C-alpha cells in the first residue's frame, strides 16, 4: 500500500526492517496470535530498542532521547506497529517521562527517568474514576497533606496494567475548596505502598488489561508531587498535547488489515478463498480506502505541525476516524472468524470436554482484537465527546 509521507519513507522502511530482524520470534508470534505478551517480553523488546537508541527517541537529547520531531515519532510508532512489534506501553516513556522532563525536579528526574529508559520500572496511569469517566472534572480521590506525606483515599478505575506496575502517576484532589479544576494535583506513587489494592476487571475479550485500584490511607511522600499543588490540570493538558499526534493507530491498522487479507486468503468459502468472494472483497477494499484516507488526513495534519501548527480539534477528528477504522478492520476479521464458528482462543476449555482443545488461530486472534476494539470508541473521551469537543472548538457551538 502506498505511504503518504515520501520524505520519511526511507526511515519507515528502516524501522520495519529493524523489527523484522530484531524482534524475538516468540514475541512476534504472540503479536500475530494476539496473545498478551508478558511484562518480561515487553522489557526484552524495549531493551533491544534502547540498544538501538530508539526506545525513547522522542525525548529531548539532554534527557537521553534522540530529539525526534513529532512527524518522525509518528512514522516510527506506526512503522513499529505495522511491522508487528508489540505496542510499547506508553505510561512510562510516552506519558509520565515527558511530564517529569518538563515539570519534574532534578531529584525526580534522577530517580525516575533512568528506570524508564532501561525498562526496570513499570508505570501505570491513575486518571479515571467511577464518577469521572469522560468527565475528569468529577475527580474525587483525595490527597491530604499530613507532614511529609500526602494521604490518599479513594478509587481509580480502568487502570491499565496496574497489576504489572511498580509506580503510578495520579490526578488527585488536593483541595475541595477551589473550583473543580484548580484543586487537582499530579502525584507519583509507589504501587507497593500499603493501602493500595488492585481488583482485576476482565473485558469483552476475556483478558485482564484493566483494574480498579483502591487507595486506603496510602502515604505518598510530598517530594513525589510534580509541579505545585493545583498544577494537575495544566500537566494533564501538557501530557494530552504530546499524545494527540498518535491517537490514530494507522500502523496497527495496516498490520491488522494485512492479517485480515492473509486469513481470508487461507479461508475457503465454497472451495474458493474467501478473499475472492465479492462481498468480502468489497468490504476489504472499503477498509483499505478508510485506512489510506486516514493516513492522508494524518499526513496533512503532521506536515502542518512540522510547519508550526498546533493541533486542536483535528486531533479529535483523528481519534474519531482512527477508532472507527480499527473497528471496521477487526469487524472484517470477525467475519472470517464467523466461518469458524466464532471460536475464541486461547480461552481454555474446562476439563471433561469430549474432544481435543483447539489451538489459537489468526482468525480467533482477529476476533479477540474485534472485542478489544469495542473500547476504542469509548476510552480517552468517547467519540460522542470528541464530537462535542470539535463542535465547540471549531464552530463555537
Amino acid at each position, binding site marked *: 500500500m502506498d505511504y503518504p509521507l515520501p520524505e520519511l519513507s526511507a526511515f519507515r522502511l528502516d524501522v520495519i526492517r529493524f523489527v523484522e530482524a530484531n524482534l524475538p520470534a516468540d514475541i512476534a508470534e504472540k503479536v500475530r496470535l494476539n496473545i498478551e505478551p508478558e511484562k518480561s517480553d515487553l522489557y526484552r523488546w524495549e531493551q533491544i530498542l534502547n540498544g538501538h537508541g530508539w526506545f525513547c527517541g522522542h525525548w529531548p537529547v539532554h534527557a537521553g532521547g534522540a530529539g525526534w520531531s513529532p512527524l518522525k515519532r509518528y512514522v516510527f510508532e506506526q512503522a513499529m506497529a505495522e511491522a508487528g512489534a508489540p505496542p510499547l506501553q506508553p505510561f512510562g516513556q510516552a506519558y509520565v517521562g515527558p511530564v517529569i522532563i518538563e515539570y519534574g525536579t532534578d531529584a525526580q528526574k534522577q530517580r525516575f527517568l533512568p528506570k524508564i529508559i532501561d525498562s526496570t520500572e513499570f508505570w501505570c496511569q491513575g486518571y*479515571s474514576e467511577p464518577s469521572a469517566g469522560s468527565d475528569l472534572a468529577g475527580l474525587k480521590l483525595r490527597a491530604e497533606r499530613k507532614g511529609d506525606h500526602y494521604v490518599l483515599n479513594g478509587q481509580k478505575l480502568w487502570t491499565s496494567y496496574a497489576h504489572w506496575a511498580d509506580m503510578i502517576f495520579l490526578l488527585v484532589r488536593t483541595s475541595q475548596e477551589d473550583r473543580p479544576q484548580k484543586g487537582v494535583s499530579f502525584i507519583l506513587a509507589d504501587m507497593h505502598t500499603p493501602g493500595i489494592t488492585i481488583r482485576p476487571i476482565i473485558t469483552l475479550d476475556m483478558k485482564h488489561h484493566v483494574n480498579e485500584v483502591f487507595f486506603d490511607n496510602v502515604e505518598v511522600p510530598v517530594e513525589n508531587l510534580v509541579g505545585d499543588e493545583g498544577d494537575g490540570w495544566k500537566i494533564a493538558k501538557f501530557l494530552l498535547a504530546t499524545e494527540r499526534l498518535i491517537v490514530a493507530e494507522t500502523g496497527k491498522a495496516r498490520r491488522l488489515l494485512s492479517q485480515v487479507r492473509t486469513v481470508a486468503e487461507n479461508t475457503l468459502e465454497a472451495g474458493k478463498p474467501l478473499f475472492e468472494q465479492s462481498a468480502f472483497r468489497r468490504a476489504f477494499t472499503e477498509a483499505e480506502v478508510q485506512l489510506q484516507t486516514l493516513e492522508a488526513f494524518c499526513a496533512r495534519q503532521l506536515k502542518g505541525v512540522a510547519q508550526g501548527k498546533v493541533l486542536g480539534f483535528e486531533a479529535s477528528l483523528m481519534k474519531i476516524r482512527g477508532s472507527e477504522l480499527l473497528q471496521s478492520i477487526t469487524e472484517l476479521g470477525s467475519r472470517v472468524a*464467523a466461518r469458524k*464458528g466464532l471460536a475464541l482462543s486461547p480461552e481454555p476449555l474446562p476439563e471433561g470436554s469430549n*474432544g481435543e482443545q483447539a489451538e489459537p488461530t489468526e482468525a480467533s486472534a482477529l476476533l479477540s482484537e474485534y*472485542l478489544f476494539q469495542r473500547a476504542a470508541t*469509548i476510552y480517552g473521551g468517547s467519540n460522542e465527546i470528541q*464530537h462535542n469537543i470539535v463542535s465547540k472548538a471549531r464552530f463555537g457551538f
Partner: protein
Amino acid sequence: MDITDETSSDAALLREHALRWVEQAYDDLHELSGRAHPQGFDPDIAREVAAQGFLGVMVPEAKGGTGGGLAEMAGIMEAVGRGIVAEPVLSVGGIAAPLLARLETPEADAFLAQLVAGESTAVLAHYESARGFDRSVTTGARQDGADVRLSGEKANTLDLAGADTLLVTGLDANGRLGLYRIDPAAEGVTLKIYRTVDGRTTASLTLADASAERLSGSDDIAALVDETLDAAAFLVCAEALGAMRYLVDVTADYLKTRKQFGQTLDRFQVLQHRIVSMLLATEETAGVVEAVIDAKQPRRARAIALCKTVTARSARYVAQQSVQLHGGIGVTDELKISRYFKRLMMCESLFGDEDYYTARYEALRPPA
C-alpha cells in the same frame, strides 16, 4: 404485539410460557451456564429445558412432540434470546429433532424420542471447513457390507462438546445426500473443540472411515437439509430479537440513571436518537421475523434470506451501540451487556451471515 399474536394463539401461549420460565427459573441459574461447563451449557438445566417441552415443539404429536411449527418455535427462541439461555434448545429442539421427525424412518423415529425427552443430545454436523457458509458437502459415505463408513471434514458445529451423538450428512456412492448417526467417541472420529465467543462450544471433526448408522431413507435429503438450515437461520433471528429487546430496555434504563457532566445521559439528544435507532432496528427485525411466519413456500426461503440479512445487521448494530452507550462498563465481562453482545455475534453469523443471506436473497429473486 408479539411476533406470534396473529398467527396462532398456541404460539403466543408457548412464547409467554417460555419467557416466564426464562425470567423466573433461568435467571438465577444463569451464571452457572455456558462458560463454566465443559459442554458449554449446564446438563441439569438442559434436562429442565426438555422437561419444559421446548425440544419437542416442532415434532408431531404422533411422534411425542406438540406439533408446532416455526411460529411456535420462534416464540421459544425469542425467550432463549431474552435470557441468553446456553442450553441446546436450538441444536436439538430447532434442528436435530424436527429433522429426524421429517425423515420418516424407523431408525430416526426410534432415536427421536430420546432426544425430545432430553435423554440424549444430538447435533447436526453439516458444514465443512473448505466450504464456509456454503451448504454443499463433500463428506462421503461408503457402504461396507452391512456397515456404513463416513470420511470427510466437518466444521462449525455448535454445542458439539455437550453432544453424545453426531448427526452427520454425507454423499453416498450415487451422490445422494443422507443423514448418518455417529458416536463421537468412535474410532476414526477426531474432534477439535473450540470455546465460542459466548462461552458455548463449537468444533471441527475429522472422519476417517468412521462407523455410522444411516438414519435417512434412500431418497436424497438435500432439500430437507436446506429447509432445516433455513429454519435454523430463521430461529436464530427470533433468538436475536429476544436479546435485542432486552438490550434496548436495559440500555434505556441505564441512560435514565447514569450521570455525566451533571446530567443523566438521557438528556443528551445524540444518545436519545441513538436508542431510537436501536429500537428501529429491533422493530424492523420483529417485522421481518413475522413476515417469515406469514410467508408460505415457495416464498419462505426468500423471506428467510431477507430476515437473516436484516437481523444480522440489526443485531450487530444494537449490540455495538448498547456497549457504546454503556461506556466503560459496557466492555466489562461483569456486566451482562457484554454477554448479550457476544450472543448477538453468534446470532448474526450462525448458519450464514449478512453477506451469505444477501447473496441468497439476490439469487432467489423472482424474474422481473
